[in-house]
């Protein structure tokens, strides 16, 4: 987008579409030559890529492969390290006030041709007890009517499995052994290559411990689970791993909106399934993928780097690292606090921030905290500024096919901050995270006087839950890994010293290496683009897709 050139490396099996893209982008001078380059080759090329001096950022998309990720993680090139979309399933919740026939038709269509953004995995359907028999009958009838065949032929609805994936025969077999009822549509006469086709399958009578629910299996697999009501549906849906999107079918609007709001998935359709937004802003993503941010990162940072000013470095302080139990306790407490703090409306949080700012103003601001620009005055200003931003941060309404989508951003949950720069902790960095509803656990070398404690006291006095902000003293080296091992919902790494290794980072959904200039120089306000960047980094997108009533 902003003047970068791209070099795409792909394994030979998946190469043809990418090579075609490369060819097409060259024809008709859509892109100048050399902007998009596609290479198909084995894994060893990645090493070479990483070591090449002119490559500035590396990312990858696709299913996580351990070796590949390890390669990329330790790369000396700057730039974002991230994982691509980790694939996911769609969870469909059907409540008793739903239009069962339309839901069945939509689910069958999705099982047949999985949506482009969420490949693999099929669908998990959570149905309220009262209507489950009716649902099952309709789904069986629909699945039986799907036509398998050549995917390019518009008459057929189900194509073969994608190349390189095994048919989910084992998963289905395990389900059968556990006593579930498995319904498979009969396979018609198949063209050559017929062993790549798998019949659409409906599995019912399983529990969440069963394998077909624990991992997404490729192919047209549909799993049906009964739930007793909307609350239970939300609980089960939140506990399913690797889900990318959700759909709620209910004609009762209050119940539908309430359920949709509580789901953790990034994209929730209401009375629809598999509608895609051509403008790309409603790609959503699960609580554990960040597709749109991954794509957005390839550009320049939205602010200019401020001039580097020589700052006096504080001496390295060695302190005992916080023990794992301590950290675990802090993270657990923070998680408990997220329920209270994160679900408050923006206006209440803004009120807390303003109260804290008033409390700080009345305290004694000593100039000797000035090394990192965290005077009480600047903290106050920052608190007020973030309070104003939080009040205004509502979200956007996007017109999409089928209706309207409400695109909002939600807090991540527990944010871990590992401070590795040679400066005392910049508290202004924590404010955006707190303001937007996260609970923060910080590991930083002690220094900077009691500024952190004063800020915390002011915030708690104004109404912040006590566990929402925890600052633990610790060595910067390796603090990232320590925090990552506690599985926070997000991790900010400030400075290379605090970096964490791949093995710990794999469990954290969002890791951000904070660039040095993001807060502006000492004593300055951060640039406007930087504030937006901070906002985006401590929230995840959530899209509620309403059907009906749109253009």
């Amino acid at each position, binding site marked *: 987008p902003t003047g970068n050139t791209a070099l795409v490396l792909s394994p030979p099996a998946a190469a043809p579409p990418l090579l075609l893209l490369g060819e097409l982008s060259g024809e008709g001078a859509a892109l100048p030559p050399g902007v998009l380059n596609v290479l198909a080759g084995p894994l060893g090329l990645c090493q070479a890529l990483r070591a090449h001096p002119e490559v500035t950022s590396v990312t990858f998309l696709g299913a996580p492969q351990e070796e590949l990720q390890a390669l990329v993680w330790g790369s000396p090139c700057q730039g974002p390290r991230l994982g691509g979309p980790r694939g996911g399933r769609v969870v469909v919740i059907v409540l008793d*006030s739903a*239009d*069962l026939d339309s839901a069945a038709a*939509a689910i069958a269509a999705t099982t047949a041709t999985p949506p482009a953004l969420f490949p693999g995995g099929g669908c998990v359907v959570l149905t309220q007890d009262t209507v489950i028999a009716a649902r099952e009958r309709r789904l069986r009838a629909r699945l039986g009517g799907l036509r398998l065949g050549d995917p390019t032929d518009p008459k057929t609805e189900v194509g073969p499995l994608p190349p390189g994936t095994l048919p989910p025969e084992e998963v289905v077999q395990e389900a059968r052994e556990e006593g579930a009822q498995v319904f498979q549509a009969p396979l018609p006469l198949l063209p050559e290559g017929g062993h790549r086709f798998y019949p659409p399958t409906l599995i019912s009578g399983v529990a969440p411990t069963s394998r077909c629910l624990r991992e997404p299996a490729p192919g047209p697999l549909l799993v049906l689970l009964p739930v007793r009501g909307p609350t239970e549906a939300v609980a089960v849906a939140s506990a399913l791993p690797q889900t990318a999107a959700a759909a709620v079918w209910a004609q009762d609007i209050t119940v539908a909106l309430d359920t949709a709001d509580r789901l953790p998935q990034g994209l929730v359709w209401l009375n629809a399934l598999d509608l895609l937004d051509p403008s790309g802003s409603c790609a959503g993503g699960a609580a554990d993928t960040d597709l749109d941010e991954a794509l957005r990162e390839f550009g320049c940072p939205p602010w200019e780097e401020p001039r580097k000013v020589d700052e006096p470095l504080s001496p390295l302080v060695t302190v005992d690292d916080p023990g794992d139990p301590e950290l675990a306790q802090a993270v657990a407490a923070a998680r408990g606090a997220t329920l209270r703090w994160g679900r408050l409306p923006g206006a209440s949080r803004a009120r807390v921030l303003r109260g804290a700012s008033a409390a700080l103003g009345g305290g004694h601001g000593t100039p000797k905290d000035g090394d990192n620009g965290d005077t009480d005055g600047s903290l106050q200003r920052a608190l007020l500024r973030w309070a104003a931003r939080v009040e205004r941060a509502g979200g956007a309404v996007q017109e999409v096919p089928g209706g309207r989508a409400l695109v909002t951003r939600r807090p991540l949950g527990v944010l871990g901050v590992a401070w590795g720069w040679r400066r005392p902790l910049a508290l202004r960095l924590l404010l955006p995270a707190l303001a937007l509803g996260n609970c923060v656990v910080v590991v930083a070398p002690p220094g900077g006087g009691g500024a952190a404690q004063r800020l915390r006291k002011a915030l708690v006095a104004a109404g912040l839950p006590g566990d929402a902000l925890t600052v633990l003293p610790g060595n910067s080296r390796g603090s990232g890994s320590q925090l990552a091992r506690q599985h926070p919902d997000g991790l900010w790494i400030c400075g290379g010293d605090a970096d964490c290794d791949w093995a710990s980072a794999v469990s954290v959904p969002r890791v951000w290496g904070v660039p040095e200039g993001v807060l502006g120089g000492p004593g300055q306000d951060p640039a406007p683009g930087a504030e937006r960047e901070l906002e985006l980094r401590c929230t995840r997108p959530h899209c509620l897709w309403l*059907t009906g009533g749109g253009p």
Partner: protein
Amino acid sequence: ELGWISKVYVNRPAVVRHAEQIKKWKTLKGNWQAAWLLKAVTCIDLTTLSGDDTASNVQRLCFKAKHPIREDLLKALDMHDKGITVGAVCVYPARVSDAVNTLKAAGCNIPVASVAAGFPSGQTPLETKLAEIRLAVEYGAREIDIVISRSLVLTGQWEGLYEEIRLCRAACGEAHMKTILATGELGSLANVYKASMIAMMAGSDFIKTSTGKEVENATFPVGIVMMRAIKEYYWQTGYKVGFKPAGGIRTAREAITWLMLVKEELGVEWLTPELFRLGASSLLGDIEQQIFYHVTGTYALQHELAMA
């Protein structure tokens, strides 16, 4: 059984979206298209319901009903000995005896269907409705298309509706009854579903979408909802009720789409004249044109195909 209709929910945007997708289904070509078109012909209720119907145009209609497609075209398709006629002839009660006599003289066994019960508005007292039905049956109609009182649906008087249709069924006697729901005037898709269920419970042999005289006649969303109701009734009772879309179906392409929709929603068993009819008048002309094109490669001039 009121319990069946108390929990009916229909999501209109989802049904409309499904209908939109149906329109994008690939068209058939060649022999398959000709075969489906001939199937459609056997399911047509050839209709004339105008104020200026007289014996002569009804006679012409009946002859067309006996030979809907030109002989030589049928011979080219090797279907001339399969007895291809339309499903029925549909006229006003006053013209029923003309139709019956013509068909008897021509030696044809096609049933004559009569509209009754205050067609098209249904705003007449119940006694006259029943009398009309009885007279039509006396004149020789073997099928009766009755019209329901939309006011009963719009005011939610489901028991009243059930009673009305039940009495009409009793008045029909041996004749086969189609209940016209006039879906364009029922207000919402949920009402369409509920009215379909009540009509089936009260003993209709067929449910029909519209009179053909409303502003909005047979559209795909309405058809989908009615077919889903038929399927649900079949699952609950094992009894198959037929479906007839009527009004606004003018092209052969639409007819084929309706047939494909029936196959998808209801299944192949419903694709026979006993369970599926198309209420149309000018449709036959278009189908004949398409078959002419298939056989000869050009479209016919107006005088080359017999007028209905």
